[in-house]
């Protein structure tokens, strides 16, 4: 367990001396809470999403899709389906993921290609590769397991905790460390800067706009930037709802070929 401060065990008499703002922070509890808020709000959810991918020459691509998600357990396994509607060459393509939180088990992934009526199973891949051509990695969308990194609290401001995360398996990722700012109120990670070497900040993921939806703080606009080339991707969500009662049967081969329309419109 990584902690910034050793646990204070001074007894009841001393509690009054410790102001709330300076209370001890258990970093592991914090990142776990942050992971839950960022990826596990409610028991399930749906959202429309669209991305604008802008390359270093300013050329733009759009992706539009609907995401359905169901948690098997909080901070654990998840079921996910992504139904693409735009652009026209990926229209009706469906991506299905059975996310496994355990580091020993890769996610199961399938892709449905409507023109061939083909359900293609996808072998486990490097999770730090582009998600459908965007600057978001597959891992940014499905969530990087917090057990992959060691966290240290570097700084605490009035509104944020700033943590430095170092990968436990440095060979498996392209970064040497990242710095994540977690909003104190919502516990959402609002800024993540990735570094190579000592100080080369080459990649940034940021929450641009946050709204509270059904009591869950929710990132409705986020941006990822390739700080080296100037390319970036914007992602925007809308029609978000949580706890809609998605049955696990929805997350199946049936929905690849015949999407569950009641949850998509």
């Amino acid at each position: 367990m990584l902690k910034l401060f050793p646990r204070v065990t001074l007894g009841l008499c001393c509690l009054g001396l410790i102001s709330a703002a300076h209370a001890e922070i258990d970093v592991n509890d914090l990142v776990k809470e942050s992971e839950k808020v960022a990826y596990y709000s409610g028991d399930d959810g749906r959202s429309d999403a669209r991305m604008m991918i802008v390359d270093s020459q300013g050329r733009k691509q759009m992706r539009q899709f609907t995401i359905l998600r169901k948690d098997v357990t909080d901070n654990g396994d998840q079921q996910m389906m992504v139904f693409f509607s735009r652009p026209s060459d990926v229209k009706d393509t469906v991506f299905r993921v059975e996310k496994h939180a355990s580091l020993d088990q890769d996610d199961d992934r399938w892709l449905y290609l409507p023109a061939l009526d083909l359900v293609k199973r996808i072998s486990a891949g490097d999770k730090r590769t582009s998600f459908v051509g965007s600057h978001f990695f597959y891992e940014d969308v499905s969530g990087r397991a917090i057990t992959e990194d060691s966290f240290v609290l570097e700084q605490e401001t009035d509104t944020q905790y700033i943590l430095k995360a170092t990968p436990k398996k440095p060979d498996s990722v392209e970064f040497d460390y990242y710095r994540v700012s977690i909003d104190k109120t919502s516990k959402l990670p609002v800024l993540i800067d990735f570094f190579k070497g000592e100080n080369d900040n080459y990649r940034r993921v940021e929450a641009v706009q946050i709204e509270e939806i059904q009591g869950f703080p929710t990132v409705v606009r986020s941006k990822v930037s390739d700080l080296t080339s100037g390319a970036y991707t914007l992602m925007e969500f809308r029609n978000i709802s949580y706890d809609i009662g998605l049955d696990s049967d929805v997350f199946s081969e049936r929905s690849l070929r015949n999407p569950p329309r009641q949850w998509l419109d």
Partner: protein
Amino acid sequence: MSLTLFILSMPIFAQDDEWDMGDWEEETTQDYRISGFFEVAAGLRISDDPLISKDMSLGELRAQFQFDYDLSASRLSLNADAYYDGVLDQTKIQVREAAWQGSLANIIPFGEHFDLKIGQQVLTWGTGDYVFLNDLFPKDFQSFFAGRDDEYLKAPSLSAKLSGFFDLVNIDVVITPEFTPDNYINGDYFSFFSPVAGQQVAPGFDVAGERLPDSPEYALRLFKSVQGTEYALYAYDGYHKTPNSLSETFLPSFSKLRVYGASLRTTLGKGLVNAEYAYYDSREDKNGNDPLIPNSQSRWLIGYEQELVKNLTGSLQWYLERTEDYSSLIDNSLAPEYEVARSRVWLTQRLSYRAMQQTLTLNAFNFYSSSDGDGYLKLNADYSPVDEWRLSAGLNFFYGDEPWTFFNQFEDASNMYLRFRYFY
């Protein structure tokens, strides 16, 4: 004062501007969607085919029109191609999909367990990569060889597909009332080897009228997924999908076929493994002694796929086709010197690489037959840096030792092609 305001608001405008992505597509009020593309494609033979005068192996202008109409719990879809085929100098229309698809909930008792798709449609199942054992749905080998997009490898059929979903097992039943053969190599695009003639021919034949089977085709799949492993059982009742039989008057025809099979697909280590088996029961030649009808066969497939390094995926398949009653086949064959080996083996290799933020995709696929000493290499590159267009280029290369073997008979069909597709 106003200047201060203006300066203060500038970054806000800039921010808003960046997020101006235009309208969200598919607003809730809209029940229908129209999409499609225009494509121009050209392909050239690498070497001459003395039997076919044209050097052009692909030359077309194509427009695809897709129209989807969403009903409350189902969908009507139309997907049709109109194209001018410069190789044959013909204008053609292919309806790839004209179907209703939906759940049978509220229509029949227990309807929530059933989906139906009825109409013209493309159908696929099985675990192979470019290798089909239990998938007896129509394929278009002319398109595959000529370098059309992969989607054209599967041809449509007018079928009804009923799917049932239960805790015990899921089931698909497909009925195709009118037999729909593959778009086989018939000599109008590419010549082929005729064992009867003992030479390469390009007759451009069509099997029509009385020689077309008049019974429906039935296909069945039972499937279930248990802890990440996908199991399936298959059955098919119909006909050989290519006219590889001869009538008594030595005309190409389709003979009766039943297929039974099974498959599984699961993760293994860092990759995926698939295995599939099919028994081809050639019902008009039970003992394998009719030289005009193909013998029964057992077909086996094992495949493995894995990401090798970031963005590069490799896969291998081993495929075995074992002919039953082989000695009867040879004893009765009209051309025993051209018969395939008792065990025909294919090894396939695929490398797939995505580069430049996935705007460039490179694919190399090779079939190699160790028993026939021949093979078929397919190379393809797709480049699409924007949503509006995609440029593709590729090579289809057939090679081998003997002129009559499965792949090498198409040696003169080897070609290079270029395609440009504009999406609307």
